[in-house]
């Protein structure tokens, strides 16, 4: 074999590789732009003067940055209280969800017991129900119980929505913590509960945090149940929805952007755990 032949083969092979690479990056970048540009545009719309919303053609660059629209939105009646309500509901959902769901996840991870498979199937199936739709019959019940138009009603429904995810995620997280670590702690003098709090819990914290963040985002974004179950004590999405028909365009833009802000942060914090949310290694 002469020296020329392999060199030629190498060159054409690398040309193919380069072309491949360009295609790959090109596709990746286009998809990334497709994701990011709309967010950029809504930010642009939200941070301009109110009058600018009727302007045409719209400026595509942030030359006319202004907090006019945003401050109008934030100061509109009902907006700040609804934001406060959204936060209260979301945080409560996290707390209630973890209190109820984390022990179940731990039980799934550590114990064998009759009915285990049935329970797992039940959890997966409950994920599949359109829980938001269930808020219609629930509303009737809540009226009877005197819980209508209260944040508690929304908290209960949101907790039911995130509970299956919390159980699945926490069971995965506790499975990853080796059982021998808890057993070692027990031989060294802790009770079973002590081993859980001193060993399993600290090691499970990152995963639990991810579950908490996911719960927050789900609750923060939820629209249907929040709208059905409340009239005056609304959450932010319900507030924006209720005013969709009657509010000026700039109000809606500002509301939309405001609702998006937490997402950008949360996904960043959660990126390691994105895969665990949807099932134990499907």
């Amino acid at each position, binding site marked *: 074999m002469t020296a020329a032949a392999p060199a030629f083969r190498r060159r054409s092979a690398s040309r193919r590789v380069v072309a491949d690479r360009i295609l790959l990056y090109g*596709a990746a970048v286009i998809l990334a732009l497709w994701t990011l540009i709309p967010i950029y*545009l809504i930010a642009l719309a939200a941070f301009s003067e109110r009058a600018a919303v009727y302007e045409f053609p719209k400026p595509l660059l942030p030359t006319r940055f202004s907090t006019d629209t945003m401050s109008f939105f934030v100061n509109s009646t009902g907006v700040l209280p609804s934001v406060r309500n959204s936060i209260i509901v979301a945080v409560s959902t996290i707390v209630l969800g973890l209190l109820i769901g984390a022990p179940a996840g731990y039980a799934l991870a550590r114990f064998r017991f009759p009915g285990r498979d049935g329970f797992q199937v039940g959890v997966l199936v409950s994920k599949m129900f359109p829980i938001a739709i269930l808020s219609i019959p629930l509303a009737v*019940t809540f009226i009877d119980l005197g819980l209508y138009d209260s944040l508690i009603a929304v908290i209960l429904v949101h907790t039911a929505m995130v*509970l299956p995810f919390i159980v699945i995620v926490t069971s995965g997280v506790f499975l990853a913590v080796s059982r021998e670590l808890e057993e070692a702690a027990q031989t060294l003098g802790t009770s079973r509960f002590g081993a859980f709090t001193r060993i399993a819990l600290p090691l499970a914290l990152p995963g639990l945090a991810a579950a908490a963040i996911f719960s927050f985002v789900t609750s923060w*974004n939820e*629209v*249907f149940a929040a709208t059905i179950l409340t009239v005056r004590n609304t959450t932010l999405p319900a507030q924006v929805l209720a005013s969709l028909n009657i509010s000026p365009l700039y109000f809606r833009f500002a509301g939309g952007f405001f609702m998006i802000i937490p997402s950008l942060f949360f996904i960043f914090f959660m990126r390691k755990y994105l895969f665990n949310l949807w099932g134990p290694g499907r």
Partner: protein
Amino acid sequence: MAVGARRAASFPAAIVRSEAALPLGLLAPTVIFLSLLILVPIAQAVLLSFQAADGTFGLDAYKRMFNDTAFADSFRNTILLLIAIVPIQTVLALGMALLIHSRFPGHGIFLYIYAIPLAISDLAAGIVWLSIFTDQGYLNTILTGLGVIKEPMAFLSYENLQWVFTAVVVAESWRATALVLVILLAGLQLIPREYFEAAEVFGASRLKRTLLVVLPMLKPSLQSALIIRTIFAFNAFAVVLALAGRQLPVLGYEAYDWYYNNRNSNVAAAFATLILALTIATTITYLRLFRVREGELGK
């Protein structure tokens, strides 16, 4: 030994009972909570739908639902949306997933970007694309600026219902593709590397590799993703509202409207039951379509 004998005699009932007590106790709150907030409302919804306002049983609610002027449209629109959105999202998400899975340098950043819409609600997504599709919106700005059209198009007006529909499809695809992406990516990572390498060694081109090796092994994930995506599609209502108002009736909105605006929980429950029935039907269809025979995945 007396002690030993005693324990041996009591072992079956006592030990089993006490060993199972703790895990069952830990599970109980979840089981109770979910039963109360899912099983009970389902039963109630079905019950409500077969009742009239005064509590008597009958098919009145269903009659009103079917005879409602908006019913046929909302049913058709909901199904059409499903047919349009699900394939688009699946293909897009599959493409994104394969891209990320190839682990090119920087794939982590791209994953983060693609995943951002995960945390965006359908209402917010609707508003985002409202700013683009509205008469004085960004799409018109770009199109007139490029000279493609002379005057801004009314994408979201009643006369252009196809465009309204398209806008909703685009907005939902943009938002929820991330969901399918994450599920598919998780499934991809479970496929042992050796399958890809074997296919490559045996000369399959990239396209063939994808079709013949990857897709079949991705069946469980596809099944999951499609089920979840479809369920959400049946519930879609805020996106449509944000972009189209009442111009594009969908089942989810009708349910909400009958309850909230017409104060008729029976008809609303009828809609809810219908949505539930459709959900179950499509879920079963998916389960059948993507049934994985034992051993097929080398398990």
